[in-house]
């Protein structure tokens, strides 16, 4: 089954990345959106647009921007979600 990981804490990026399989996706939300300027995704990588805008940030382009409509759609495209806390 494919998994969408949802990460909100930038300090846990390494931990979360360590369990990502190649067919899994990673969505950055809340304070973790700052990573979209600093790093490249290992697998399919997304970033929540509203959380970027709230902080005055842009993505670096290698993460796919998703708004909340896209966020809901992503949770249905993957078989399940894991919120990495």
């Amino acid at each position, binding site marked *: 089954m494919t998994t969408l990981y949802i990460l909100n804490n930038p300090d846990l990026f390494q931990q979360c990345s360590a369990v990502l399989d190649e067919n899994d996706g990673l969505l950055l939300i809340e*304070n973790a959106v700052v990573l979209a300027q600093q790093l490249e995704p290992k697998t399919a990588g997304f970033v929540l647009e*509203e959380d970027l805008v709230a902080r005055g940030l842009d993505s670096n382009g290698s993460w796919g921007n998703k708004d909340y409509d896209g966020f809901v759609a992503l949770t249905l495209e993957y078989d399940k979600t894991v919120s990495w806390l």
Partner: protein
Amino acid sequence: MATFSLLVTANPHSSQGQFSAIQFAKTLISQGHILKRVFFYADGVLVASRLNCPPSDEYNLTKTWAKLAIEHDFELVACVTVAMKRGITNAAEAERNALTGDNLDPAFEISGLGQLTEAMLESDRLVTFG
């Protein structure tokens, strides 16, 4: 059309998770999906207090959940064990535990963890906001 339930463990007062959960809930409903239940666990239950009183120019998460749940007919359930520990109680539990007062917002109910398990089994997707 899919059926969603949410597990919300985020502290409403010091983190963003409850804001995110509300936005996610509104969006899925606007897309025509069904929201069955929002289950509050860990610090997430703190949102169920009717005494929460943010400054008047700020978003009131408790009232926003309540309004949304009534409009769209979904359940707001706080886990009883972690709620009692965190000082969130309805009148019945207050009496049983000899507490002087209660603070549960009427839009929320207090129930057991079984309500989370049931939500898992009866929804197409369970998304956690912590």
